[in-house]
């Protein structure tokens, strides 16, 4: 049996280059009377990969949705790359520009071709000329290994291909951080691998990432830190190895025994 140690709930020990990219301090989030996040403190370092796990309803999606203001946090502060999130729309847009997001249900724009899906934001937000934006988009499609799909529409592609386009779309803005919100949960088993491989490539290239996922294999391979959440709180923090071999908290053990 595992030896007992003090449970580490401190998610502020950054890895990566040591430079703090995301800094969440004493953050609370309510939905009406329900407190979805309770006093969250978390830091993510540059080039660090943090995997957030936890049962559904534990607030892990809400946490990353607060980081790019898809949800408004109620107390505490969130600072992304030195910019604090407030009600100031300019600050919000500055943070969103530098923060890519990949959704569980892809959320590609069905009325636009793959190429237009990828080039829309760079052209519209960064005012990049069309030709240049399309050249970048083609490079990104090469990187996610589907350059032949550029002219197609999302509805004509498989789920795995769509999610890879969504990753390419978020990369097109040259973000400093990418937030992954259960990117493989809506995929058929045989397509999960192609998306995870793309994410692994990104991690190897030094992208700062927060991934909400249940893919423990992925966590083991690329995560610098794993954060376990339950009931809106950070319950346990550690390396992937720690979670595989020596989880301390009762809820962590229960959760891991269910998904492993």
């Amino acid at each position, binding site marked *: 049996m595992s030896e007992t140690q003090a449970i580490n709930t401190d998610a502020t020990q950054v890895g990566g280059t040591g430079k703090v990219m995301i800094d969440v301090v004493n953050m609370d989030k309510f939905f009406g009377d329900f407190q979805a996040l309770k006093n969250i403190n978390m830091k993510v370092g540059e080039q660090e990969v943090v995997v957030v796990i936890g049962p559904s309803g534990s607030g892990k999606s809400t946490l990353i949705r607060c980081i790019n203001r898809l949800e408004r946090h109620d107390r505490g502060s969130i600072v992304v790359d030195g910019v604090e999130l407030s009600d100031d729309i300019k600050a919000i847009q500055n943070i969103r520009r530098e923060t890519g997001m990949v959704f569980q249900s892809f959320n590609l724009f069905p009325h636009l071709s793959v190429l237009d899906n990828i080039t*829309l934001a760079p052209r519209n937000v960064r005012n990049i000329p069309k030709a240049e934006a399309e050249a970048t988009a083609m490079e990104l499609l090469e990187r996610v290994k589907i350059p032949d799909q550029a002219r197609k529409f999302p509805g004509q592609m498989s789920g795995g291909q769509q999610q890879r386009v969504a990753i390419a779309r978020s990369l097109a803005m040259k973000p400093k951080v990418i937030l992954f919100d259960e990117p493989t949960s809506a995929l058929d088993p045989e397509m999960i691998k192609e998306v995870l491989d793309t994410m692994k490539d990104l991690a190897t290239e030094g992208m700062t990432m927060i991934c909400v996922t249940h893919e423990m294999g992925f966590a083991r391979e690329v995560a610098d830190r794993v954060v376990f959440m339950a009931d809106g709180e950070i319950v346990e923090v550690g390396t992937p190895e720690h979670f595989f071999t020596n989880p301390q908290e009762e809820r962590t053990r229960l959760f891991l025994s269910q998904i492993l």
Partner: protein
Amino acid sequence: MAERAATYLGDDITAALAVDSTPPSSKLSPGDWAKTNLFSSAANTIVTAIVAVAAGLLAFFALRWIINADFAIIRANLRIFMIGQFPREELWRPWASGYVMILGAGLTAGAMARNSHELALSQELESVKEGWGQLLRRFWPIIAASIFFVSFARTVMPYIGLAAAYVLVVVAREVGWRLPAAIRERALFIGVALFIVAMLVIAGTSRLGGYALGLVAFLWALSELSRVESLPTGFAGTAVRFVVALVVAAIVAIVQNLIPHDGFGWEDWGGLHISLFTTVIGITLGMPFGILLALGRKSNLPVLKTASVIFIEFIRGVPLISLLLFSNLMLPLFLPIDFERPADLTLAIIVVTGFSAAYIAEIVRGGLQAVPKGQTEAAQASGMSAAAVQRFIVLPQALRAVIPAMVGQFIALFKDTSLLSIIGLLEFLRVSDTSNAQQEFVGKGLASVTYLFVAIGYWAFAYTMSKESRRLEAKLGVGHR
């Protein structure tokens, strides 16, 4: 030798597979079809028999009525049915205007068909140029109705005129198809500009036409400038764009005003012409206005929101007739005394535009709600501004989703133009009454003849709109969802 043998073997295998993969034929002989569909059970047989007898009786009475009917009233009033009391010596105007409009429609349709053809090819989708047979099938109600109308003409001119119109539309469409890509991309501007020119030809007024042409020039210049990438970005670039576009618009409007217009406005317009004209204007002006109202209603700004809600709910809460009467009888009482009273048709167009805008706004609002939240979130997450999210992500999908409801509204609007008679405009349906009041026809009970004639006119256009909407839906559905 060996290679050839292998090829033969390959062919054999392909052939064998091909035979296996053909689905079993589901074609029935006419006799079997009738048996399975019309006489499959006792109940089915009874229904078939009853409907057949009813249809036979209906056909018999209709035929007897048509054989005995006197169509002289249509022959005598054909011109009034088409264009109302338009001065006889100015008849060249409607014809010329019609040809300009047909030229614009043909060019634009050809160019846009080619554009979507090229787009489909670039996506490696199957696409073939639409043949004349297909076009005939698409527009047969209007083609049949136009031939039916002309068949009542007493001179040969209308026949020649109509034939020329069909030749022109064929030629214009072919030319539009063959235009260079750079011009084809701007086809919509050409089409709208030619539409306004057509209006100028028939009405000849310069001031309003100048504004309208200026507006088209403004939008065109703006879209040209948005392609120029060397301009500075941000506020400075936007300002330069707007100023240049405004200058272009002003030049166009002034040049247009320099051309002498010996027109007479639209006081004398009438017949099918104003029914169609008010519909087209009501749709083209009501659409942008309605979309703005829908966005206003969803806005976070209380003033904008309240104003939109009040406008929409007020217009939707009262009958169109009351609005028309109000504009015609009451509005002049509120205007300053030295204010020149606008023409009846001007007031009617304002009312019809506002009316359709209110209904379109509610339809669009439904569409906006149908766009999944994830779409907005994905666009927001990439840093796009709220306006850009609406413009590029939400609205295109919302409008696509509401095409059927929208076309339903257009058809209703087209039929509602018959209410313009209430304020004294001689629209299509009212000609039926006025011609029956003529000395030579009064008391002869010919209303049924004229009503049938009018009904065919309404039906031809309304049915074509409905067919086109279904076609558009099917087309937009391909490869998008």
